[in-house]
Every structure is written in structure tokens, then in C-alpha cells.
């Protein structure tokens, strides 16, 4: 079974808080004292990948998620591959 890990690189994080804003399950939290984004609720992650999409510095990474990928790479398939729609899977 996939062992899923979500990690956040504090050195890359610019505290734009976009991930806190966009996560539908409140996985991220902003700590007012340390001024850091923390992963407070990792269990609730449903792998929608919106945080990955919005994070401009690539500070967030989610590893071990099974996802779909297209069979052939065509210009039209690109977006689908990122979001994962076609019935071929791989482990990232």
C-alpha cells in the first residue's frame, strides 16, 4: 500500500498562505507565533493537488500517491495528466 507523505519545505516557503486558503480539508495551518505554515491535519488530505498547483515555489510535495496518467502524451493530454484523469496509473 502506498505510504503517503506530505511535506513542506520551510526554506522554500514564502508564506503567501495560498495553500492554507485553497485546501478544502484544512490540512495546512498558519502558526501566528512562529510565522510558519504547518501541516496540522495531514490525515485529512484527499489528494486534490490544489496546493501543489498553486504553490509558486514548489515548497509542498506529496509523495506516494497513486494517480492516473495518460497513455500517450499529446498536447491535449497534458492538463489531464497533471490532474490525473486517464485510466493508467503510476505511483509518484
Amino acid at each position, binding site marked *: 500500500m502506498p505510504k503517503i507523505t506530505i511535506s513542506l519545505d520551510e526554506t522554500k516557503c514564502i508564506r503567501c498562505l495560498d495553500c492554507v486558503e*485553497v485546501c478544502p480539508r484544512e490540512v495546512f495551518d498558519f502558526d501566528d507565533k512562529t510565522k510558519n505554515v504547518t501541516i496540522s491535519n495531514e490525515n485529512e*488530505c484527499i489528494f486534490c493537488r490544489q496546493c501543489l498547483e498553486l504553490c509558486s515555489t514548489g515548497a509542498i510535495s506529496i509523495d506516494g500517491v497513486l494517480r492516473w496518467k495518460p497513455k500517450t502524451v499529446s498536447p491535449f493530454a497534458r492538463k489531464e495528466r497533471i490532474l490525473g*484523469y486517464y485510466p493508467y496509473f503510476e505511483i509518484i
Partner: protein
Amino acid sequence: MWKYGTIEHDTDVLVIGSGLAGLRAAIEAKKATCDVILVDKSFLTRMSNSMYAGLVGSGAILEGPPPKHEYSLEHTFEHMAAEGVDPGWDYPYLENEKLMMVLAVEMPGRQAELRDYGVQIPAGERYGVTPLSGYRILIPLLNTAMRMGVKAMAKICIFDLIKKGNRVIGAVGFNVDNGDFVVIRAKSTIIATGGYQKIFKRTSSTYRMTGDGQAMAYRASCPLWSMEIWGVDMVGLDEPGLPKMWMPGGGRLKGCYRNAKGEAYMTKYFKEHNLVGPNATLSVDDPMPIRFDWPGLQSSKKYPCHQYLVDNLIHFWTAAVKEVHEGRGDRGCVYLDLTRNTEEDWFKSGGGVQGLNLLRDFDWKNNWVHIQPLMIGHIGGIEMDEEGRTDLKGLYVAGEAGEGHAMHHANVTGARAGRSAAIDATYLAPEPKLGVEEQAWIEEKKEMLQEILDRKPSPEGDPKEIKRLIGEIMWKYAGPLKSGEGLNKALKELEKIRKKNLPNLYAKNSRRLREAIEVINMVLVAEAVARSALHRTETRGVHKRLDYPRRDDKNWLKNVLVKEENGEMKVYIKPVELIWDRPSPGVAKEGC
């Protein structure tokens, strides 16, 4: 004194909320050459239910009408009247039938229109194959709206409507990022803020679904309609370390529901309720779609389940809550037994892979997963007619904020509300000028916000904590199984929150201020839900009362509405306008 700045906007049509309904409304109004402002309290489209549609409303836009209603318009409509807009829901004969008729007629056409707006495949990934299933619909729509010249503003939290007499002339809010107070004057206003799922602890919706639209409309003295009609899906994971999320269908392929004793209780339930069709099978060794008529596979050629075993998903969660209620559950849950799934089974569909992701490192080969019902959506909302009009002039409703749910509903009502709002703004509405009274009212609102910002932090006033508290209370006392006693308790607890916690509500900055506003809205909506549920003294479909276990068509072919009168919540009833099919009076269907 308001310490941030104030910004004013002027527009023809203001659309609050940027899900499918909001975007459709904005585009439609812009097409009618109106100035349109589209605001959202978070990122545009990103926090809407339609973005996660596959996971939220099983009626994600389908290619054509839902598979069950594939015959004719009459057939479609008949089913809608008897069961509700979506298969799997059950609130017979309570729906606004005119609205339903419009839906049945317009659904395919409105869906085809999406192609004109750049949506390549106007069908969400059905039944939660992946999260973000609305992506391919919403992002092209947003792009189209922007290209057409809709003025879109993200992170503007609108919290009240400006009223002048009986007309809504705009709304007030604040910028979540920099705290600027925002006044938007509009000739007509469309509320498309989505649902109130978050008042319950267990939900698959995004956490911004706090019923802001309903609360705003209520405060502007608009009636809220049938707030007690909300539904759950039973396959919500409840295992420590796993997300409390809906398990997609693909993963349940060979699964079996079991109670704490290990019995496959659905078999018994089906037999008891005489729900077994001629071609159906009840052997637990058969794949779930064949046994249980799983709607995602209804029309699939792969699975020859022509005869539906159960025609309504409500039976699954009814059976589950019954098991738990009768003491055959484990800490409030029943089990989903997936031990007979093989590794390959999971990879047969997208839902399977997503299900495997959700299960993470849970040992499903040897253990049963705890599952518990999970709120997925609601029918109730702001009272509206089929054109999206409300009680107030200049105020329109679209999508889940109004009556009904599901994405095809958002698509149709969004378009219709946008059109009627545009007509209003072009021909009927006067210039939205703020008088002395309105200015004073706005100052009052500013002071209210400032008060929240000035308060000192205290444990009672923590918005996150209060949100959690509301969720717990509502799920415990006004959850899937209701009783008069429980609902009264819920009301009492909510009253306690209103008296003890709300006066201490604090926010450190504008970002937290949004949470505080959400809490205020949630308390109000939760009360409306509990009061309506208390008033409906029968069991009807998704509304299950333990103290009134029978459906009562004689007395309760009525909608329950709540309205503000002199600062109090008044409950009143309105008979349902049955224009299509009349149920034979006194037909009693036993609830659970």
C-alpha cells in the same frame, strides 16, 4: 472607527460566489450587456462544491438526464417529483415542482451551452472518480467569464446585503487580505454562495461551505425554505489516521457492509422492506454493483444489472443508522468489508485508485474499515421561484444557496438567475443610491466588524473552536436520526453558543475576521435547520424522526419555512403546489 480603508464599487449585477452557479449567472448577465462583478470569499472557483462535485453531489452533470430517467420528459419529471431531483435522494413531493419542471426541460440544453463557453467535456467525472472533478468545467468557464469582461474579485468576503425598502441595492464585505471595507452598489444581486454543509461535523464538502448566502438572505428578511431536508451518504470513512471522507464507488467493488456482529445486514434489510427485484441477487460474494445497484454502473454494459435492486440510495444509510441505533454498531460506525477485493480490483477504475489513496496504509486485506454516514448536501435554502427571484426585489438566488442541489441544478438556475437579474438591472431597477439610512447602516456594520477585531483573544471566542462545537452539536443532536428531544437540545446548545461564545468572538486580522463572520452565519443557519426539523413532525425520506416514524401525507405535504420577524426566528408552513402527480393521501411508508 474602521482602521482599514473603504472601497466602493458600482455595478449592474453583483454575483456572490464563484462556483458553477455563480459563473453561469455572471456569464449570462454579461451576455445581456450588463456590468458584472463576481466576488468570492476565497480563490475564484477553488473552494466551491462544484469543484469537488464528484465527491459532493452525485448528480454531477451527466451527459443527458440521469440514467434512471432515460425515457421521456414525463418520466424524468415523475421521478423527480417522487424522489427529488437526484436519484439517491428521497424527499417525496416536497420539491418546488415548477422549478423541477424547468430543470427537467432545460437540463440538456443548458449543458450543451457549456460547450459554447469553452468547456470541452461538459460532464463532471461521475461519482467522484477523482477529487477536483469540476476542474474541467469551472476553469474554462472562469476563463470565458474573464474574457467576456466580468470583473472578478477574489477574497472579498461579503457578509450582508444593503437593503432600501424592499429592494436589495448591493452588499457589504471586506477584503480578506488587506482588510479594506468593500461596499458594492448593484442594481441586482445574485447569491450563489453554495451550501451550509459545514455546520455538521462530518461532511465531504469544502470547509468554506458555511451557509453565508442563506444567513445573509435571512438577515435581509428573506424566508429560508425546507432547511430540514438534507441528506447523507453512508460511506464516510471514520478510521483514525484516515480522512473523514467519502469512499468512492470504484473501491467498493467487492465490498460488503457489515455490522459489529459481522452480519451482512443489507440482505436482511432488503428482504424486510421488500426491495428485492426479480433479477437481483443478494449473495455477499457478488460484486457490489450487482447486489446494490450502484448508480455509477447502472448504465454500464459491463454489469448486467437491468433490474434495480434498490432504486434509492437512501436505503443504504437508513440501514446503517438503524444498525447503529439498535446497538449493532461499533462506536457509532458499521463496517465496510473490503477483504475480498484483490489488488487488481482497485485499479479497474479511477474511483478505485482514489479509494486506495484514501485508505493509505490501512490494512484493508485483513481489517474491515469503519464507516459512518457523512453529510453530502442539502435541498433547503433561500426560497426562490423558477426564475431565481426571491421575496426581495433585486435579489436573485442560484445554485445550492437556493432550493435544490447538484450540478445540473446549479447550471440551470445559474443561467436563469443571471438572465432575470440582467433584465431587472436593465429595465426595472432604479439607480442604487445610498441614502442617509443606508450610510448609517453601513457605519454600524463597520463598527460591528471593528468590535470583533478589537476584542481580546479568549478561549470562548476562538472561531475555530466554535465551528468545531457547532459541528459536534449538530451532528450529535440533529444528525441523520432526529428526535424532538435531541433537536430541542441542539437549539439549547446553540442558544448557549449565541449567548456565551458569540459576544466573545474575536479576530486578530482580516483573515481571521472571515472565520468569525462564518461562525456567526453558521450559528444562524444551524438554528434554522434545527427549528425546521423540529417543526416537521413526520418521517419523510431523508428527514428521519424517531418520535414520528411514519410518513404523513395528510398533514405534511407542506414546506417548512423560517423567517426573521422582530429579531426572532419564526417558523411557518406553506402547502406544496402539486402540479404534476398527486400521491394518494395517507400512504404511509415506514421510516427507519
